[in-house]
């Protein structure tokens, strides 16, 4: 066993220790021992010892495997090849122990036995195997019902929040939408042919527990457009302290309906006279705050759908973006054909116009929202913008002049 005096210091402390866990396995798997050895070197030298990734894969697929080679293969022969396999996770990361054990058995056989549950995109990540083992490992997994996830310039494994499986606020079936879209885009997931990566995420409500707004090129977030349902007696129970604020999530014993809910409503559309809670729903912006605070008293309305937002990605190259509203409301139901079709139109436009390594959000910024909206057949809506433009530099097209000739006015709808 390699000596790891620095890493050993990470064995103590109350939070679960990955070092402790890896050491257990290192006793059985030489490559895990080597991994600890190389990691120790990195801790000492403060530098990575992985070479720039190479392209490896399984037959017919161009994605899902991250090639990885040590730059100290002589010292750590177990790491000469140490590729990652991204396995597409089930919607909502639900498992049975049987399923997990099946994966473990295969991975013990073909790989290092190290997993990430899960990768930041959501995949079940199998960390460390050799080029030779990729194909047999893949097929063993496939025969147990698993497939490889995305990487490279491809559709990436979509992910979703726990949604209707265990949350009262899911405004649509996030798990099924995620599953349906994953299946629909299998070809593009496995065969990179896009300008760059493309991520889909599905959150059941504006709490956005899967961080769709921050890290999905196409973010789907559940929303309602009618009135919040109020159980006035439950509101009173909160005010009286019988029900705990936020379902007990807080250090506070009692909710002050006025101070903690009404006064913090971002639109100021609520009022509470000590007896009746009123909401001016036309002015509610679905922030979820009041519902979060009083889950037993308030529920989202029943006219439900998704908002589609586009464009988020990490900072490379233009600076990070969050997704912005493209379609404020879309009714959806399995098999989610309207989401799939829209996604296809968007990807088609992006594939045609995007430069190499240009995320769709960057492309929309480069070519302008009008070009994008017209190409995918969506109307301009004020919900897309938090404010209209401040600069006077806007374009006109011949079709605008034609519409004017036919009577279109910009200062009134009449």
């Amino acid at each position, binding site marked *: 066993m390699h000596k790891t005096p620095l890493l050993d210091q990470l064995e103590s402390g109350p939070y679960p220790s990955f070092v402790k866990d890896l050491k257990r*396995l290192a006793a059985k798997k030489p490559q895990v021992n080597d991994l600890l050895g190389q990691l120790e070197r990195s801790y000492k030298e403060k530098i990575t010892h992985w070479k720039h990734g190479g392209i490896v894969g399984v037959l017919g697929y161009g994605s899902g495997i991250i090639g990885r080679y040590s730059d100290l293969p002589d010292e750590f022969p177990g790491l000469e090849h140490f590729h990652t396999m991204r396995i597409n996770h089930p919607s909502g990361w639900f498992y049975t122990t049987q399923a997990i054990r099946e994966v473990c058995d295969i991975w013990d056989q073909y790989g290092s036995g190290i997993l990430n549950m899960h990768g930041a995109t959501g995949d079940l990540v199998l960390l460390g195997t050799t080029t030779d083992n990729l194909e047999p490992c893949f097929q063993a997994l496939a025969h147990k019902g698993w497939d490889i996830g995305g990487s490279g310039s491809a559709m990436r494994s979509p992910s979703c929040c726990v949604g209707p499986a265990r949350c009262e606020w899911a405004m649509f079936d996030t798990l099924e939408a995620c599953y349906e879209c994953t299946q629909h885009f299998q070809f593009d997931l496995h065969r990179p042919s896009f300008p760059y990566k493309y991520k889909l995420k599905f959150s059941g409500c504006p709490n956005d527990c899967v961080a769709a707004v921050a890290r999905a090129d196409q973010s789907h977030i559940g929303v309602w457009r009618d009135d919040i349902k109020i159980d006035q007696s439950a509101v009173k129970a909160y005010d009286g302290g019988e029900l705990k604020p936020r379902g007990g999530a807080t250090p506070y014993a009692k909710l002050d309906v006025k101070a903690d809910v009404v006064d913090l409503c971002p639109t100021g559309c609520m009022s509470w006279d000590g007896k009746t809670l009123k909401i001016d729903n036309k002015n509610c912006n679905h922030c979820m705050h009041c519902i979060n605070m009083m889950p037993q008293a308030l529920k989202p309305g029943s006219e439900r759908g998704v908002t589609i937002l586009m464009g988020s990605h990490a900072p490379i190259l233009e600076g990070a973006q969050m997704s912005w509203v493209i379609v404020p409301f879309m009714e959806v139901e399995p098999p989610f054909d309207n989401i799939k079709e829209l996604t296809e139109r968007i990807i088609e436009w992006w594939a045609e116009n995007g430069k190499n390594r240009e995320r769709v959000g960057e492309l929309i910024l480069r070519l302008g929202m009008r070009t994008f909206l017209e190409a995918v057949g969506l109307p301009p809506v004020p919900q897309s913008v938090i404010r209209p433009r401040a600069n006077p530099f806007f374009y006109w097209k011949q079709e605008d002049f034609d519409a004017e000739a036919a009577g279109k006015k910009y200062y009134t709808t009449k």
Partner: protein
Amino acid sequence: MAERITDIGPPHYGKFLSPVIKENYGKWVSHEIIEPGILKHVAESGAEIYSVRVASPRILTTLQARDICEVADKYCGGYLRFTSRHNFELLVSDKAKLEPLKAELAKRGMPKGGTGHSITNIVHTQGWIHCHTPAIDASGVVKSVMDDLFEYFGSHRLPAQVRISLACCLNMCGAVHCSDIAILGVHRTPPKVNHDRLRHLCEIPTTISACPTGAIRPHPDKSLKSVTVNEERCMYCGNCYTMCPAMPLFDPKKGGVALLVGGKVSNAKSPPMFSRLAVPWIPNNPPRWPEVVQTIRKILIKYAEGANKYERVAEWIERIGWEKFFEVCDIPFTYQHIDDYKWAYDTYRTSMHFKF
């Protein structure tokens, strides 16, 4: 050998749902957090499911995975899930099993928590365990920070949720750009071009166009078939290295940690916000990164003291003003804090609304 199978996609989640969940799918009516780490969801039918959330270092061996399965078999009929922040949740349908389960978790050193006004798991990335571009390790920093903040994992003591994330380089895998506190590995040296390797490994036009600041130019000596870097324009993003392995930018002393704070994702009260630069550089000090740990604790304590009820870190800072944030946290304000990238203008203070 059996028939080759491809493009089947992931298993349908339906296969993995416990009976209670299946029956009450889409029919949950409310939830409660009965104690830190334990959620109770109630369905229209009156059915209940208890979810016990347990910390995970995310990196798991098959040994550890099997241990978790053992627990799940014993108390949950073999049903469990993982969360979007990499904790796992034991899905208990029999309330009576909660207390024994808690005892077993305690015995096994599997801490429950991460619900409500806590610090839940740190979303993080590969670091020195598996990536080629990190400035820092991931798992080791996470362990160090979580050990230090452990009191906040299994409790609901904070004014609101605090979400910490880590990315080991500027690619920022994970949603660290919208976290209450983001730990970011940063390089601080321009790439050193290895002309020999470059000639063989890299396409010059792609390499040049990879640079967002236009710092890369064809090498004046055409026979080299390589590039030069205008070091003054390089801000060490590493994008050239992603495209061309002959341009490493690692430096053990200059690499380090930046902290960004005040991001959020949810729409609750305030809209999603980006994390913003709090500390531009802290030395890279394995194995326990003490300066990083202490600085995060300091920020957290100041937040806990200063925030109003239900106020996220972002909301607290926006209320008091960033100039006050730097003051109360005793963090010096430097040139690095002032944006000079593409949309810099929107961060400038075009008003008299500041505090002294």
